[in-house]
Structures are given as C-alpha cells and as structure tokens.
C-alpha cells in the first residue's frame, strides 16, 4: 500500500518472474548500481529499499525480490499482498520466461491490489543475438493488460532507473483514485447476471 504523507510516499514493490530472469540483478543495479555475472540464487525472498525523488514527491521503495522457482510461487502472495507496485521480469532470450511473466500478471490481476502499478520488464536486452521475445510482442501484451513495458539490462544499466522512475511517477497518480473498487463491483455483478442468464 502506498502511503502518501507530505509528499513522502512509502511504496511496497515486489519483483516477480521466472528463475534467472534477472530480478535480483535488476534490484542490485537499481539499489547499489552493481552487477555480477553470477548472482546467487535467491531463496525465499530478499529485501532492499531505495528512495527516489520524482517531481515534487519522494518515493521510498520497499522492494521484495522474490525467488523465481515455480514452487516458491506459494510464498509469493505473502510478498505481493498489499504491494503498491510490481515489476514482472522476463528474460528476452527465453520465451518460457515470458509465458511465466504472463502467468504472474494474471495472478496479480486476480489476487493483487486493483490499483497496483504493474511494470513488465524484458531484461537482458543487451543480448541482442539471443533474443527470443520481440519488443512488439511484449508491448502489445502490456497494452492489452494495462501494464507498461520496458526493455531493461541490468548488465548495462539500460532502462533500470527509468523503469523504477516510471513506477514512481505513476504511483501518486493512483493515489487520489483510492476507491474505484466501488465502480468495479457493480460491473462484476453485471457480468454475473449476463453469464447466468446465458447459462440458464
């Protein structure tokens, strides 16, 4: 939950994505501006925090970098519950990691906070030759699902700060529309009546 007080925003942010997509590397680049070729596998989750100044507000990110392996999935809700933002990371050289990212987005939309700012990060953009997922494909998916997409590289630091800045910029905008849930609920009710009538 992002909390805005005197233009200081504390925002819980969670990183999700497949094994080896580069979640930890992305955070390490963002928080410490470091990069190591072989980042130790994350067990459970790791925590970082970083503060950004955006426009007139200061955003303090509380970043939970989760483990990528499928089975750690069951622990993920603990970390994305109540998060104000999520970065779903995939590896542009790995089609399977993109599919996994799609799954994550679906789960966030189903379970997460409705106002969550969700970013889709196509990491390892420096590996041009090994690319398997095109930027267009990811961009289309992002647009259809109301996310924003960026290609990043933790290795070269390309777009790493930018993606977090973009999240930070989007955060305050979400703030005033704190309860569009009132709108969504009747929508769903509509859906229900339609589908039940169709069934009967």
């Amino acid at each position, binding site marked *: *939950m992002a*909390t*805005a*007080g*005197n233009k200081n925003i*504390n925002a*819980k942010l969670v990183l999700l994505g497949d*094994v*080896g997509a580069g979640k930890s590397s992305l955070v390490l680049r963002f928080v410490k501006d470091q990069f*190591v*070729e*072989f*980042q*130790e*596998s*994350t*067990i*459970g*989750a*790791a*925590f970082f*925090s970083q503060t950004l100044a955006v426009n007139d507000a200061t955003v*303090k990110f*509380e970043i*939970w970098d989760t*483990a*990528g*392996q*499928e*089975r*750690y999935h*069951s*622990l993920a*809700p*603990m*970390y994305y519950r*109540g998060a104000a933002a999520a970065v779903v990371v995939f590896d542009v050289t790995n089609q399977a990691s993109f*599919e996994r990212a*799609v*799954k994550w987005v*679906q*789960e966030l*939309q*189903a*379970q997460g*906070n*409705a106002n969550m700012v969700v970013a889709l990060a196509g990491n390892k953009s420096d590996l041009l030759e090994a690319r398997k997922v095109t930027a267009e*494909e990811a961009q*289309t*998916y992002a647009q*259809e699902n109301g996310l924003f997409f960026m290609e990043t590289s933790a290795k070269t630091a390309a777009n790493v700060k930018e993606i977090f800045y973009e999240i930070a910029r989007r955060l305050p905008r979400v703030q005033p529309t*704190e*309860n569009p*849930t009132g709108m969504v*609920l009747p929508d*769903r009710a509509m859906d*229900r009546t339609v*589908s*039940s009538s169709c*069934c009967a």
Partner: protein
Amino acid sequence: MKTASATVAAASKPLNPLVAFEHKRDAYGFPVRPQHVQRYREYADIYKEEEEERSDRWSSFLQGHHADSSTDEPSAKESSGNSDALFDESGKGKEDEKLGSDVATGDANEAEEEGFTDAEKSVHRVQLWTEVRPSLRSIEELMSIRVKKKVDLSKGEKEDEKVKSSPGFDDAKSSKGASENDSEDEFYDVERSDSQDGLSSDGTSVSGIPVAGDATSFSESTCPWKEELEVLIRGGVPMALRGELWQAFVGVKKRRSKDYYQNLLAEDSSASSIDQEDTQHGDEKGSNTESLAVVEKWKGQIEKDLPRTFPGHPALDDDGRNALRRLLTAYARHNPSVGYCQAMNFFAALLLLLMPEENAFWALTGIIDEYFNGYYSEDMIESQVDQLVLEELVRERFPKLVHHLDYLGVQVAWVTGPWFLSIFMNMLPWESVLRVWDVLLFEGNRVMLFRTALALMELYGPALVTTKDAGDAVTLLQSLTGSTFDSSQLVLTACMGYQNVHEIRLQELRTKHRPAVIAALEERSRGLQAFRDSKGIASKLYSFKQDPKSVLVDSSKVSLTNGSLSRSESGSSNADEVLVSLTGDGEVDPVQDLQAQVLWLKAEVCKLLEEKRSALLRAEELEIALMEIVKQDNRRQLSAKVEELEQELAEVQRHLSDKQEQEGAMLQVLMRVEQEQKVTEDARRFAEQDAEAQRYAAQVLQEKYEEAVAALAEMEKRAVMAESMLEATLQYQSGQLKAQPSPRSGNQSPSTKNINDQLPEPPQSRISLLARPFGLGWRDKNKNTTPEKPVEHVNEEKPKAEGKETNSEPKDVKLQDAS
C-alpha cells in the same frame, strides 16, 4: 584454523588460511560482505581460539569413547548396551587423566589431524565414498539408530539388543529431562514421517518401513554420554571433524545402499536413448519414464543454478561444480516428489565442501527427506505451516515487538521465511550458520530453526522497536542478522533460552495451523483457475475478432489453459461453438454437454465464491486504506501542531535571549555604577579620614594651646608675683637706698635691665626676671597671629608637634591605600 583451510581447499598447501585467502573471504572460503569485514576480523581471532579449545575438548572426548568402542566391538553385540555403560565410566576416567596430562592430548590432536588429512585427500579424488573414522563410530552408531533402515540385514539383532538394554537404562536415565525430551521427540518424529509417508504417494525410498519406533527412541535415551555429547555439540564441532560428525548425525552410513547413487547417475547416459530407459532401472527405484521426463525438466534449473551457487568459491571449480550437478541430479531422480528446489544447491555445495560426493548425497537425502520433509516439495506446505507456528511463538514471546511490527505492517514471515528455507545460509555469518547446522543435524528435526529465529528476535527485538517504517525495520533486521558474528552467544541463547520450544509442542502447533495453509492453497489455486478460465476465453474471443496476428501469444495461452486446467474444459467447451477451429477438438455429444453444463455451473459457483472473496479482500483493503488515511490525518494534524509549538518555542526563545541581553546590559550598567559608588565611597572615606586626622591634630593643638595658655597664665601669675616681689624689694631697696632715684617712674624694663646688669646678685631671681619680660613680649606679639602660635610657641614643644604631623601623614596614605 589449519583444519579449516585444509577442508576448504584441499589442493592448496597447508598455509595459514588468513594469508592464503583474499581477505574478502572468511576461513571457509565464503565471501564476507564489505560492511562486515571489520567485524569479521575482530571475530576471526575469537573463532580461532574457540576452534582450538573445542578441538581439544573433542579429541579428549573421542579418545575416551574410541577406547570403549574398540574394546567393545570384539565382544558380543547383544551385550553392547551394558558394556557401553561400563566403558563409559572408564572412558570418563580416561578423560580426566588426559585433562591432567597435556602431552597426551597434544598427541591425540596430532593423530586426529593426520587422520583428517588422509580423509581430506580423498574428497577431491576419485573415491566417492568414505567411512567415518573409527573414533567417531560410536557416535555414528548412536545417531543412526533413528534412521529407519529399509535394508533389514541387522535389524533383528539390533531390536534384540534394544529390548534388552532399554529396561535397565530407562530407570537410570529417567531423571534427566533432556534425554527424555529427546526420546519423545524421536517418537514424534517417527509418527510424523509415518503419516506423511501416507500422504505423499511414496516417492521416498529411504524412509520406507518405520520399524519399532518406540524401541529405537528408548535405546537412544539409554546412551549415557549423549548429554555430554549434546553439550559438546552446542559448543560447536571442530572443523576437522565437522564433515564426519555431520554424516554421523544424519546416519549416512546406515542410509546408504550400495550402488544406489551410481545407478541414479547411470540413468544419465540412458536418458538420451528413450527405449533403454525402462530396462535400465526397472526394479526397486520405482522411477519411470514419467519421473525421468520431470528430471530433465529440472536439469535446466539445476544447470542455471550451478554457477549461482557460492560464485567464486575456491573449492567450487569445474570439478566441484560437476560433482554438484551429479549430486543434485541424483537427488532429483531419487525423490521426484521434491525434485530440485532452489536452496538445495547451497546445501549440496556445503556438504560437498565437507565430505565425499556419495556421502554428501546420503546426507542431503537425510536432511531433505526427513528433517525437512514436505518443506521443499512443490507446494511447500510445511514451510508455510512452520511460518505460522513461528509467528505464534513470536507473538507469545515478544508481544511488544509483534505489536510494533503489526503497527508498521511488517509480517514476521517475510523475513523468517527465507531464514528457514535457506537454513540461515547467506543470512547469518558462516561461522554462525555452521554452528546452527551442528545442532540442527544432531537433533534431527527443525527445532533449532525455531530456537535460532527466536534467539535472533530476542537479540534484535529491542532495536527493531525503535524503527519508524516497514522498510527500516526489515533493513535493520536483515543487517543485524547478517552481522551476528557471535555464534556462541547465538547458539547458547537459542538452546538454553528456548527449551520449552521442542518437537512435541511444534507438532501440536503444526497440526493446528496446517489446515489453514492447505485451505488457503486450495482456495488460491481454485480462484486462480476460475480467473484464468474467464480471462482465457475473453482474450481468446477478443484476439479472434481482432486479427490472427497475435496468434502466437494466443496459442500459448490456449495451451496454458487447456494444459494446466482440467476444470477449464467447461469454459472452453462452452466457447467451443465459437472456437472449434482454434482449439481443434470439436466433438460435442449430448452427454458431454450435460456434464459440461454441470462443470460450467461448478465453475460459476467457484467464480461467485471468488468474487465474494475478492469483495471481502477489497473491503479489507478499503478498511486498511481508511485507517491509513485516518492515521495520515492524525499525523498531519500532529505535525501541524508540532510546527506551531516549535514556532512558539522559537519565539519564546528569542524573547528569552532578548531579555538575557537586556539583563546583561543592565548588569554592566549596575556594575559600573557600583564601581563608581565604590570610588566615591573611597573618596568619602579618605576625606573623612583626612578630616578625622585634621580634627585630631586640631584637638591636639588645642590641648597644647590650652596647656600653653595655662602655662602662660601661671607664668603671668609668677610674673605678677615676681613683679610684686620686685616692687617689694624695690620698695625695700628704695627704703634702704633713698639716694637712688626710682626707675619705676620711667621705662620699667630698661630699669630692670639696668638693675639686673647692675645687680648681679641674687642670680636666680635675675634669671626669672629676664625670662618674664621676654615671655610677655612674645605673648603680646602672638595675640595677633594665633595660628602660628604653636609653631613658634615654646622651644621644647615645637619638635613634638612636628613629629606628630609627620606621623599622621603616612597614616593617611595608608588609609588611602587600604580603601
């Protein structure tokens, strides 16, 4: 320290490890974080001392017991229980002797060292399996009792001996609470693994037949030196013995079945040719084509994690990583229900650093299959259950801390979850990790995880309470935990302070919390699937209408929904009419239709439930948001008030400083006035003194004057008398000498002078006569000038007066000075 280096880098010469390794790595070859280097250096010496101390203690302990077992072995196995006790006493005697003679222990140490290096050499050579050194056999035997062997070779006799030994020793030992606890723990352990064997559809082949759990547990408590051993282990295991002792604790020897590891690895070569698969390993392993396919899926993950396991560790060169790969692959094949889980790569690597490959495999098997049964499986249920249990314990123990964390919105499990899953690896400094592992492997359950976590909360809770937001709290806890270099303090706090946290209690709590976890898991997967259903159809329809360009994404989605969900068939069959061409299978018969409708309705119900749940969630969220807003509001008001007060304070302070300035000025003025006053006072005093002196002088003069006047008066009287006498004499003379004319008619004094001149006799009267006219004449003169009268008065008085005046003058000076 020598031992540590030897373990880590067997290839490197036995140099001083502190020199041999770059200083960013610790004695075990693991990197030390830059912010901790300083503290690590501080503790390196302490570790060294501790290590020396404990290797002494251990060697003397083992000497004693080695003697026992060596004499024990030849004797009949049936009586081993009794003889153990006997020898234990003798062993203790020996120990005492050894403590007395340093030479003996020194020798023993060297002997250990030699044995160690021998064993060590084998680690990185072809030999994949070694036995524990003879001196540790007794411990191995003791610990391996709890391993439930599937091979029934010696079971019969063992049971006999247990039955025989238990009654006698139970009495002897029943007074000791700790060992009793242990035995009960064991009992529970067995029960638990029983039930879970039933649950998990038997992928584990080692924890096969739970045999005579009660008997084994009792026999364990009969061991008389177990407590001594426990104390030693809490104090830490010497690096030289660690690998072997861990094997002994886990019961590697007993778990091992020959060629099993090699057979698991042999599948590797056969995997390429699909036909040979079944023939190669049809028999007792129970693995089939299916599991093999799964293994191959894990292969990618293992491969990915190999370089990400302790990157840069000196011992993990190409050979080391190959061994790690083999080990993890073998385990995945051995237990397909767990397969490969991240974290195992770290465990396996650590074990490989301490022991030969096959030993490491069996140790890993013991740890994952038994100690952490259900922890690293696909759904990780036990891990989540443990977190709930821990949370309850933390809540009970540290209400203040939990209250604060609740306020900040921090969940304990966020941080402790990773602790448990990694068994503190990369969370604590390495020395502490190994110390925790020592106890954990010895105890053979997860109690130590809880105790350590609670000890950390105890150590760092007070600091956490001071944090102001969630981020700070988690950061602080992480960094404090990462710098827990005092491993002895940690282990002792954990073991001593939380004795009431034991396996029985944990089991109770686990059974209490497990249903919630399972329910949440089911609900989540159901909700997710329902969501995916609708989402899948919607997006399919959408993209179908749009254009066939995004088919690539679409088809993957379709395969997703179809592949993963059996329930989603309802959805897709409903949409089948529209999407026959897309999904491909378009057979629709009436029976299926009914079934489909039922399924659809089910899905509908699920959806409704899901909606209800999400509505509840929303409500919750809204509530939280509201509370936050209120909090914010309060905070804003408070901050405004604070600002106001601060302003007021500043103003008051300004006033105060003004006043102070004024006061200062006033004080200065006052001081000046005072000074002036003092000066004038002084002046006044001087003047007074002057006046006094003058007055005094005047008085004195007055007195003198009066004296003089009195003297004069007398003189006058005398003069008058003398005159009258003179007259009388003159009259007498004139009476006698009538011839002579009277001088009295003319000038008196010349006549007297003349008389005096003329008449030398009587001389006395003549003098007085002379004196009188002189005095009179002076007197007449003085009547006009009185002030000078004393000065020229009488000759004898003048010096006196002058002396007085000179005396009084210095006195005045003195007074002036004094003032």
